[in-house]
């Protein structure tokens, strides 16, 4: 009976190709939307998002508008529960939402190495630490911009030499370019000597992040610039709030894609069964049970959907892997990454949608009035 199903699919190649292609395109979009959702989720949850704080200038959003004294770090370090403070100068080429945002973060190279979850895949820390205009580039930026170790890279007023490419267990980190703090502070146009954009605060294991954040703001209230301190995840979600709303809305697009596949495969299968209703009557006449006829139709719709769905999912994962896509705004970025969860979701959705799409035509094939169907020309 498997031969019958496979040969039926092969015999109607044009129909099969169109259905599989449609399902593949829809599942491609579904996985892409899924990767954006995952990216946002990763950005706002997890240890990095929950166990570190960002101290930013109060009522400011874009990195270019936040200017905090660098020596705030000493006062912050005195707050109980603070393990380490990293002053960071941020420079971005675009404060608006962009698919090719370039974000530089300037910090002490040794501190970057010690505190950030980075692994150099090319280059070395020593060169990064010793050269003033050295930069290590996140894997995604390097992919998007075609950068490799040894390349010069200029954007706006900033010119750096790429001395390494890094991977990170925090995917959004792979959209950053790290330089030394001094380099970025003294870049022409920034005029930020002694100033930083933000302080990143690492907490001790037993510290309550919200309590420490309140205490930091209270301590710095007497300083020249008022601050607002939040968990890193909350800070990034707030920074990307416009995008978060859009991404929240985009999950409906994912559901729409699933609906599209369902409708496409169901329509194709219904038409196929209607065209071959006499064939199903013949099969039942020679002894195929109605339930088995049902299974044949379900197998057909599921195979079409799974082949299309898995193709679309794999293409999406490959595009995400190769493309290094990210969307960002105001210095924060959401990384679109392939993941095992996405592959499993894509496959499961394909199987479930394939089965669901086949139910109506399967019932039609199983309950065919045999005598009437055999009379058809």
């Amino acid at each position, binding site marked *: 009976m498997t031969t019958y199903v496979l040969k039926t699919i092969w015999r109607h190649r044009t129909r099969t190709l169109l259905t599989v292609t449609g399902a593949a395109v829809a599942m491609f979009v579904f996985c892409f939307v899924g990767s954006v959702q995952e990216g946002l989720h990763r950005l706002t949850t997890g240890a990095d998002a929950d166990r570190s704080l960002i101290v930013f200038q109060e009522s400011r959003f874009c990195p270019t508008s936040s200017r905090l004294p660098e020596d705030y770090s000493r006062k912050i370090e005195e707050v109980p529960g603070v393990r380490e403070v990293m002053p960071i100068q941020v420079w971005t080429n675009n404060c608006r939402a962009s698919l090719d945002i370039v974000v530089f973060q300037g910090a002490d190279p040794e501190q970057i190495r010690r505190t950030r979850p980075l692994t150099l895949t090319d280059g070395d820390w020593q060169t990064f630490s010793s050269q003033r205009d050295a930069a290590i580039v996140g894997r995604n930026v390097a992919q998007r911009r075609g950068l490799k170790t040894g390349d010069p890279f200029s954007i706006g007023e900033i010119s750096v030499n790429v001395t390494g490419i890094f991977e990170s267990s925090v995917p959004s980190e792979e959209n950053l370019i790290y330089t030394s703090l001094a380099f970025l502070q003294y870049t022409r146009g920034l005029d930020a000597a002694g100033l930083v954009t933000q302080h990143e605060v690492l907490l001790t294991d037993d510290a309550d992040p919200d309590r420490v954040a309140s205490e930091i703001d209270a301590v710095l209230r007497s300083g020249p610039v008022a601050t607002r301190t939040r968990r890193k995840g909350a800070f990034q979600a707030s920074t990307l709030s416009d995008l978060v709303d859009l991404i929240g809305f985009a999950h409906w697009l994912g559901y729409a894609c699933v609906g599209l596949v369902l409708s496409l495969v169901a329509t194709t299968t219904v038409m196929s069964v209607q065209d071959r209703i006499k064939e199903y009557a013949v099969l039942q006449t*020679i*002894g195929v049970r109605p339930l088995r006829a049902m299974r044949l139709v379900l197998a057909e719709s599921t195979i079409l959907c799974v082949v299309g769905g898995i193709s679309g999912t794999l293409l999406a994962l490959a595009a995400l892997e190769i493309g290094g896509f990210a969307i960002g705004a105001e210095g924060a970025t959401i990384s679109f990454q392939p993941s095992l969860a996405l592959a499993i979701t894509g496959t499961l959705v394909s199987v479930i949608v394939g089965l669901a799409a086949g139910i109506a035509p399967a019932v039609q094939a199983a309950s065919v009035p045999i*005598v009437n169907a*055999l009379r058809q020309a």
Partner: protein
Amino acid sequence: MALVELRGVCKRFRKGDETITPLDHIDLDIEAGEFVSLMGPSGTGKSTLLNLVSGIDRPDSGTITVAGTEVTKLSRSKLADWRAANLGYIFQTHNLIPVLTAYENVELPTLLLKLTASQRRQRVELALEAVGLSDRADHYPRQLSGGQEQRVGIARAIVAHPQVVVADEPTGSLDTETSEQVQTLLQRLNKELDITMLMVTHDSDVAAIASRQLVLDRGKFLEQSGTTPTRKTDGDEMIKQFG
């Protein structure tokens, strides 16, 4: 007890305001090994009777028993199982599955039985040999002539070694020469394999190959002739081997 027994079988259809009764309290016994032909004008219920015996249609009243099983009592699924094991159906328009080869078409009914792969292969090969189409096993229906398609249909009907084979106008769509070949084949299968056959036909020449001819008109049998069941005779070695 006869192999096929119909008792008081009634079938009615509604056509607009009119009620048509193609079968009106029909009684019929068909013995094992018999070859019965059923003739009559169009719309007199010949095919309906065939469909009722096959269990693909249900009577409004009466009982139909085939090989000891009262088919009128079986559910749709049970009927399918029963047909797979006990009934072969030869269609007028062959009704082969177009995406399957001759071999695969003949193999279909055996997939529904508990047979090993080698048993299936042996049965299919012998059925194809019995209808003289071993050399066309890999051909698709579109690559076969009408007569060859019908012979594949016959091989498909006998491959599961059914108790009864029903044939609905098996020569209706064939030219004279091919029709004669098919008639001969059906006769040989009946005589040499002792297969019980019930055949519907419009053609009195075709009906004559049967051991008993029935004429149905306005829901009743009009006449019967040749009531002696055929006997198994020595015949073609291949067909005997199949049996």
